[in-house]
């Protein structure tokens, strides 16, 4: 499937891009992260501490074991600091 992946804050800085489109067969968010980490050092670095990373699937906060079935857009970012 084709997936848009967005990165924010220091995750964006470490990955080096704001948005990319990937072809993947990952079933869950965790699978997708593992796939990216195995692909290039910069992903491995950005996701090295998963406790410091949050994800959303189609603009809704999700767990790492969330399914990517029918997903269009995944975003990866640090804990939010709004307000």
């Amino acid at each position, binding site marked *: 499937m084709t997936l848009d992946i*967005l990165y*924010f*804050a*220091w995750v964006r800085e470490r990955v080096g891009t704001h948005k990319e489109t990937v072809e993947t067969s990952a079933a869950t968010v965790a699978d997708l992260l593992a796939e990216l980490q195995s692909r290039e050092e910069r992903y491995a670095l950005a996701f090295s501490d998963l406790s410091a990373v949050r994800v*959303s699937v189609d*603009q*809704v*906060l999700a767990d790492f074991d969330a399914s990517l079935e029918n997903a269009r*857009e995944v*975003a990866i*970012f*640090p*804990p*939010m*600091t*709004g*307000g």
Partner: protein
Amino acid sequence: MAISVQKEDFDLGQAVRGLVGERTDIGALVTFTGLVRDTADGTLEALELEHYPAMTEKALKEIEAQAQERWNLSACLIIHRVGKLEPGDQIMMVATGSAHRRDAFEAAEFLMDFLKSRAPFWKKEHTASGADWVDARESDEEALERWQR
């Protein structure tokens, strides 16, 4: 019932007047304004706010809907700025109006607790010695827990 993400500053008095309008059923109106606080050593040059536009409106609407469901709110407003701000600048505001004060206070606190760690904004502090992303605070996660029932 009103949400705005904007670069421009806002005026608290004007925002509240717009929210209340000609209504006469609001007895209590609470606002929270977040301001750019300087670092302890006074070296903050700017605070930069990044957000995830496609998700922001969804998240804010969801948070607001939850507040509406839990309290008797006659009026509700969220304004959040993005971009580069200076110490003392206004970052964001919420306003909640109700017949009685308990609803207005609790709903405003609820909105703030969720905005702090469930709305897709990230803050970066720029000082003379460089730039650093603001860490999420443990206490903000704890603040959320009291609303879980």
